[in-house]
Structures are given as structure tokens and as C-alpha cells.
């Protein structure tokens, strides 16, 4: 037992909203820990932090953290978040979402939020299936995988979350896992520091549904898979094509500077104001 209460606890709504809904062995709590440590590193005032989410296991996170929290409808968290950020650009807005929430029902919203470069940090917890409804396939379920709605195996190709959002215009795109926690803390800090639409995809196990359906073992075995099946961007350079087969790459894929939507909107207001003064 730790001798003192970890500092992360002061960010939790400990009295009100626990116990949490997540299953034993779920990775979402680890992501929440990383987010809290990153927030602590940023030294943000809690009053200025907004956490938005949609629907699903990951989207339950806002209720547990003591920020301004907005638990919205399925897939819409970035649309709500866009409104929050525009109404009060001073706020630090983050969105937490699962793979189904972000890429299926929220697919349209996420590509447009990325294209606009709205200044929101998005954390996508990818557990390869819909956990809350009992393990149906999602846009990130790998080909061949079994889920409650793919009893004969998945036939649809999966999204590469990071490539999709790079293409859509995100200024910071990274991937981590809940096994590599210190790395994840740092990725989230960097995403928070980035002005504009920043994304961290976090690979996370769902032992209850996806793990059981695909006989991947319990929480420990699934954690080991994250360790064994991923390589970081430095390791990639040293490995040949054959060794890379079946491996998922962790690290930062995009880090670029483009004016954010609120910066552009502010400039637009100035321009419009001047034009109006000049009577155009």
C-alpha cells in the first residue's frame, strides 16, 4: 500500500461518482490516470478545463474527474466541444472517446473538427469493439476477429486511426498504449501543449468482450500483447519488413504548426470589423 494518497486523487470526484463502471482489466482507468498526470503537468486551473465525451465505456470518464464535464450523445462530443471552444476560447477543451464513438457514429464530426483544426485534444481509446453494448464490431475491429456481431469473423477492413486523422488535417497525431504508461503520459502532455486539433490514439484491452471472444486470455495476457505487438518509431527504423509484420507502431506521427480555428476566427472578426468600418 502506498504510504500517502497519490496526488491523482485530488482530480477525482471521489465522493460523488465512484465506484466506476469499468470492468476488471479494462484499460480506460489507466488512460484516465495518464490524462490526470498530464493535466497536473500542464498546471491548468481546473475551472478552465472542459472534458467532453460521447457515449460508450470511455465516454463515461468525464463523470469521474473534477473538471467542467460534458457527457453528450453518441459520436457528437467534438460537435459539442466545437461549440464550447468557440464560445469561450480561453478554455482547455479535451474530448475522450472510444473507437466506435470517434470513428463510426462520430466519423463525420471527427474529420471535420480535424479539418477545421479546432483547438481540442482528442484521446481515442481503441479497444477494437463496442464494450458497453456487449462487444459488437467497430471500425477498428481487425479482419477475421470475432465479436458479438461478427460470429463468423470480421470481413470489413479496419480504419488506421492515425492515418485517417493525419489526412483529415490534425496538427498532432500520436499512438500509445496502456502498457507503455510513461510514454502515454508524455504523448498526452505534448498533445495538450499543441495549439490546434491534436489526437492521441491509445490501444487498450477489453478482456470482458473482445478478449474473451477472440480467446486472447485475461487482462495480463492482453497487456503482454500490447507489449509484444507494438514497436516505437525508433525501433521501426531498426527492424526489417518481415519483423514488422503484424506490429503496430507507437509514437508521434504528425507534429506540424497550422493556425487553429479560433485563431483564424479571431482574424476573420478583425477583418470583418475593418471592412464594416470602411463601409464595404
Amino acid at each position, binding site marked *: 500500500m502506498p504510504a500517502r494518497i497519490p496526488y491523482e486523487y485530488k482530480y477525482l470526484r471521489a465522493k460523488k461518482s465512484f465506484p466506476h463502471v469499468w470492468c476488471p482489466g479494462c484499460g480506460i482507468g489507466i488512460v484516465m490516470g495518464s490524462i490526470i498526470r498530464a493535466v497536473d503537468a500542464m498546471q491548468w486551473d481546473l475551472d478552465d478545463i472542459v472534458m467532453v465525451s460521447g457515449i460508450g465505456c470511455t465516454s463515461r470518464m468525464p463523470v469521474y474527474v473534477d473538471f467542467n464535464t460534458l457527457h453528450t450523445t453518441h459520436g457528437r462530443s467534438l*460537435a459539442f466541444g466545437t461549440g464550447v471552444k468557440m464560445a469561450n476560447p480561453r478554455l482547455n477543451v479535451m474530448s475522450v472517446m472510444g473507437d466506435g464513438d470517434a470513428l463510426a457514429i462520430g466519423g463525420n464530426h471527427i474529420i471535420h473538427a480535424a479539418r477545421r483544426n479546432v483547438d481540442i485534444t482528442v484521446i481515442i481509446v481503441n479497444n477494437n469493439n463496442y464494450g458497453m453494448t456487449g462487444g459488437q464490431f467497430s471500425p477498428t475491429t481487425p479482419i477475421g476477429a470475432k465479436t458479438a456481431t461478427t460470429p463468423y469473423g470480421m470481413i470489413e477492413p479496419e480504419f488506421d486511426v492515425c492515418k485517417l486523422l493525419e489526412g483529415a488535417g490534425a496538427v498532432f497525431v500520436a499512438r500509445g498504449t496502456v502498457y507503455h504508461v510513461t510514454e502515454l503520459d508524455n504523448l498526452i502532455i505534448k498533445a495538450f501543449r499543441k495549439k490546434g486539433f491534436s489526437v492521441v490514439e491509445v490501444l487498450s484491452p477489453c478482456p470482458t468482450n473482445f478478449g474473451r471472444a477472440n480467446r486472447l486470455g485475461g487482462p495480463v495476457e492482453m497487456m503482454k500483447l500490447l507489449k509484444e505487438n507494438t514497436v516505437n518509431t525508433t525501433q521501426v527504423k531498426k527492424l526489417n519488413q518481415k519483423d514488422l509484420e503484424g506490429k503496430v507502431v507507437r509514437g508521434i506521427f504528425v507534429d506540424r504548426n497550422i493556425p487553429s480555428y479560433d485563431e483564424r476566427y479571431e482574424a476573420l472578426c478583425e477583418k470583418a470589423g475593418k471592412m464594416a468600418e470602411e463601409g464595404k
Partner: protein
Amino acid sequence: MSVPWGETRLVQGNEAVAYGALAAGIGFFAGYPITPSTEIAEVLARYMPIMGKKWIQMEDEIASISALIGARIAGCKSMTATSGPGFSLMQEGFGYACMTEVPLVLVNVMRGGPSTGLPTQVSQGDVMQARWGTHGDHPVIALAPAGVKECFELTIRAFNLSEIFRTPVILLPDEILGHMRERMTFPEEEEVEVVEMPVPDVPVEWYEHYHDSANNVSPMATFGSGYRFHVTGLMHDAQGFPTRKKEEVNAKMARLKQKITRRLKELEDVRMHNMEDCSVVVFAYGSVYRSALAAQAILKKRKKKIGIFRPVTLWPFPDRTVKENLDSKDVIIVPELNQGQMIHEVERMTKDTVRVIPLHRVDGYEITPEQIVDAVMEVI
């Protein structure tokens, strides 16, 4: 710049809605282009950036109303404008706003349906959707203007009611009103009453986002104001945290209903013309009300008397006033640009002895005064 205070000029209905929003202190607009509402977004796109207010065209109508809710929780008065198909998509967010008690104004310039229907033509096909379109039990306030000046005035009233009752309000003009132009005189700025929702003044640790105050509506804090709170579309307790406890669920549902039903007087807005000593009454709202007025004038020349009953606030329906004024009549004619929607409400509030006669039109054209005259002549 912005609202032409005190001026008299030719104004389009949609333009008047946009000016009404500016007059009411709109801080955020999000929308998606759709006929016949688009001019509202266009006028605001021109003025709002000049005034430093936020305007955005979202990727669809679901995103638009979602952004509206986010913006209001972060402190900006918000409005969107759409029409039938977009109104359908917005039902999700509308329900969320009802549940989380977020004020906003949703303008639905009604066009012919179902589905894509008649994009450029008039209808009143969405009045029941306005009431029951989103799932679950929920309160609704909906207002129906009947002229360009009313488009301006009722947009302001819609904003004010949304702030007073802490709930989304629907404005239901139709394609005719949205696109027609009329001469109107704008009021002076100081003549317009603008209501702001009260903000909490309790210590932060005492704050309850859904406190059950005397009138069932509690002051709403905004994100960034120092009051940290949780908002969810799940059933929640007074603080806003999810709950399944039956007493808390019942309390929430009762309060949502009561905040409207206990203050019907403030919401009711009914216009009546020549209701005394007439046995036939035309019940009409929106642009059809204009045809009813014209029909009344034609009939007057023929020495025939009819009364006109017009609800301006469609929802909540003016149950008592309808009963008090229409129950004693012989015939009520209900002309509507649909296959019969509000007629059910009229029938519900009148005795079996009153003949309630429908007059429908769903081909995308207006109900003419002559059609109403003919309907009256058959029964008078």
C-alpha cells in the same frame, strides 16, 4: 451596424428572424444550409463576425445543434435555423437540450414533407414533430409567427422564453413567411426587452446545476465561471450526476414538466377576432391565419360573421382558452397546411356537440382566403 433600430424598410421573414436573434443578444450560431431557411444563416454570417460573435457552418444539422448546446453551456446565447429534413436530424440534440435544460432557439422554417418533400414550398407539417419529435417525455415551447414583423418579435420572445424557462424553444415560421417581404418598422433598441438567465451566486460547493427552486428553474452556471459541474443526457440528480434512484428520477421528470405546466399563463399567446356573437370560428395559425383574416373580410362584405382564433404559442397548447372560447360554438373550421395535426388538439378540448371541420392542403401552395370562405359558406 446590425439591427436597423427605428428604421422602416422592406424586410424578408428570414432576414427578420436574423435581426431578431441579433436584437436578443445571440452570441453563437451554428447551422447547415437548407432551403427555405438559409437566408437566416447568410444574414448572420455577415453581421456576427463584425460584432465579434461566433458563427459556424457545421458538417450537418446534428453537429449544429450539438455545437449550440456546447456554446450555451460555455456562456453564449445560441440559435440555429433549419427546415424539415434538418429538423428531423436535430431531434437528437433537441432532446438533449430538454433533458439537460439548456436554453437555445431552434428555427424550423417549415417546408413540404415527408422526407425531402417540397423543398421550396410551404407546409405546416412539422407542428406535431415539434411537440413529439424527440424521444421520451419532455416539455416543449413552440411559437408560430404570421408575418415578417412577428418573425422579428417572436425570435426575441423565443430567446427570452428559453432563458426564463431554461429550455430549448422552437420557432415555427413556414416557407411563405420565411421568403415573403413586408414593410416593417423596427423598434428602438431600448424598447426591446431582453432577458438573461440568472447566474448562480451561491458558494461553489453549494451549487446544484438542477436545483429545485420555487419555480422549478434554477440559475445555470457556465463552463469557466468557477462552478465546475457535470452535464449528461443520462437521467441525473440535482447536481447533474447520473442516477437510477426512483425518487430522483421522478423528481427530475416532474420538475421538467412542472416548470412549463405551472406557468402556462406566461407562455400563452392567443389572438382572437370577433369571437362574440358568431357561431362559426376559424382556428388558424402561421401564414394560414393571414388567409383567415382575408376570408373574414370577404365574408363581412357578404354580411356573414365568423370569429378567428389564433394560437401564437402552439406549444404548450392553450387548452383552457380553447375550451372557454370554442366550446360554445357550433362549428370550428381548422385550415392547416398538413393532413390534420392541430385539429386533434382542438377536438380534444371541445365537446362532441361542436363540429370540427378540417381544411387541408398539402400540395405546397397556400390555403387561399377563398378556400376558407367556401368552407364557411357550406356550414353557415
